[in-house]
């Protein structure tokens, strides 16, 4: 029985590898075309940005792991690693095609399966393959963010199955609706520069769905404090560093727009951190590393959907308001008994993303990249479009994620038991202590 299963697994893997090799072989034949005046500046910049966005996923492992108990550090790292693996494979096999190929309203088609027909050469701008690399990094970071909400209670195997299914039926449609010419493009006026809805609201509400399904952690685990502040700070630094490419590369070119976007991003992050500091100092009386890093991440999340469409002063408003909103969101969710969002993913990414999307509808400047006017320039279209987009994202991602985890729970145990929780997933599931 065991041997048969193993043979079946090896055979499946061999098939997958063969398929991939065949596709790459056919693709190699039409390489070498498109020589001439390449936009090397943009090609280089987007490659650098892809690398910057990549480092956010390992950064997430430090950021979240540092804020958990010491018994969950290895568990967080392994979950992040498998998220990077699963999302990348899913992205090259079907994810990219479902997101960016075809004009379907709800989802793309399978024309570019295994990146078939996606060329690495581009006469102008960046090539389609480079775009696929850059977007693939976004899929990875979105999955990694989800892990923070449901940390310390979902079994590793269940999480892998969840991510594999989620990447195809939640992430791919979301990316298709917003960037791939689907639902939002066809029926609404929606602007999302670098993924406020696709990445942050989607990850936040998916986390909430998992948290509500799997239930809260045991009180002892829940009341334990962050075990390693320096690691959490390192994670925040990597996230902030990566965010420069996350927003700066989303214009898909190396020009003045990218420069302005990075300036706007830095401004908003700084304002978010200072606003969080101010409100926490006023309410609690003291501020530490954890508050300041949450504030800076909140500021970065808030500016993500708006980065290309606003100027410096608007960015300051967006960042400061995100810092304050997310602070109160964290206080609210921490007080809810059932809503055990371990690392405040919804309070920071979800609430920050929702405000960022709505702020884009209010403050978007028609002179900038999008060319669409926000509420303060007298146009209601964008404002209404953004609100509808946020609501659709919330409902869709929550409902589908909840269904996925419900179906998975019929086939395997999803939640770790109380005893396992107390010993910690590091030992129970991985057999590796993070610290001796």
């Amino acid at each position: 029985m065991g041997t048969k299963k193993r043979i079946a697994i090896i055979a499946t893997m061999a098939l997958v590898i063969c398929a991939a090799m065949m596709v790459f072989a056919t693709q190699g034949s039409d390489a070498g075309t498109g020589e001439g005046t390449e936009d090397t500046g943009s090609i280089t910049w987007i490659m650098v940005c892809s690398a910057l966005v990549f480092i956010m996923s390992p950064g997430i492992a430090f950021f979240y792991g540092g804020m958990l108990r010491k018994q969950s550090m290895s568990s967080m790292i392994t979950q992040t690693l498998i998220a990077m693996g699963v999302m990348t494979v899913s992205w090259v096999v079907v994810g990219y095609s479902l997101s960016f190929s075809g004009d379907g309203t709800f989802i793309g088609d399978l024309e570019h399966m295994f990146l078939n027909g996606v060329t690495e050469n581009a006469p102008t701008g960046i090539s389609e393959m480079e775009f696929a690399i850059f977007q693939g990094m976004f899929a990875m970071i979105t999955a990694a963010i989800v892990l923070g909400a449901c940390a310390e209670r979902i079994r590793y195997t269940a999480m892998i199955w969840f991510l594999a299914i989620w990447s195809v039926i939640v992430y791919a449609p979301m990316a298709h609706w917003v960037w791939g010419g689907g639902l939002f493009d066809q029926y609404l006026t929606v602007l999302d520069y670098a993924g406020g809805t696709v990445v942050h609201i989607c990850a936040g509400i998916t986390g909430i769905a998992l948290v509500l399904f799997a239930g809260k952690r045991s009180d002892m685990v829940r009341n334990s404090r962050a075990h390693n502040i320096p690691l959490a700070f390192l994670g925040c630094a990597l996230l902030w560093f990566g965010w420069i490419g996350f927003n700066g590369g989303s214009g898909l070119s190396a020009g003045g727009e990218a420069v302005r976007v990075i300036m706007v991003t830095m401004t908003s992050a700084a304002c978010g951190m200072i606003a969080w500091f101010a409100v926490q100092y006023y309410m609690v009386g003291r501020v530490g590393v954890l508050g300041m890093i949450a504030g800076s991440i909140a500021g970065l999340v808030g500016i993500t959907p708006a980065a290309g469409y606003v100027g410096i002063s608007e960015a300051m408003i967006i960042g400061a308001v995100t810092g304050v909103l997310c602070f109160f969101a964290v206080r609210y969710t921490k007080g809810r008994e059932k809503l055990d969002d371990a690392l405040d993913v919804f309070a920071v990414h979800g609430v920050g993303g929702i405000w960022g999307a709505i702020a884009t509808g209010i403050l978007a400047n028609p002179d900038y990249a999008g060319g669409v006017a926000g509420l303060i320039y007298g146009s209601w279209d964008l404002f209404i479009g953004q609100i509808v987009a946020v609501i659709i994202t919330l409902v869709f991602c929550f409902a589908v994620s909840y269904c996925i985890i419900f179906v998975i729970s019929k086939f395997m145990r999803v939640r770790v038991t109380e005893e396992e929780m107390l010993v910690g997933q590091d030992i129970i599931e991985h057999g590796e202590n993070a610290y001796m």
Partner: protein
Amino acid sequence: MKLITAVIRPEKCQAVKDALKDLGINGMTITHVYGRGRQGGVKFTTRAGEIIIDELEKTKIEIVVEDDSQVDSAIDAIVKAAQTGRPGDGRLMVTPVERFIRIRPEPPEKQE
């Protein structure tokens, strides 16, 4: 004069502290320790077989009760606060103390 050493579940530590505070016992030493009980650890089943975790996280509380008449009520309070009824609730040891000396001089004897 007795030394009470209680090894309890970490999540019950706050409850025990509160219960002792109600009796007027505030001084204590708390240590995070690892150990196992009569069952020899906890057994978990994985895909490849069974694993036994024989170093479980516990919290050790040490209290010196100077008034012998208070010892029984302190024991009762700890047992009541730390009990869940499941394996792993812990142990409680009472040992005699020969001498008990404060390092800081008593305030009436010497002004600071």
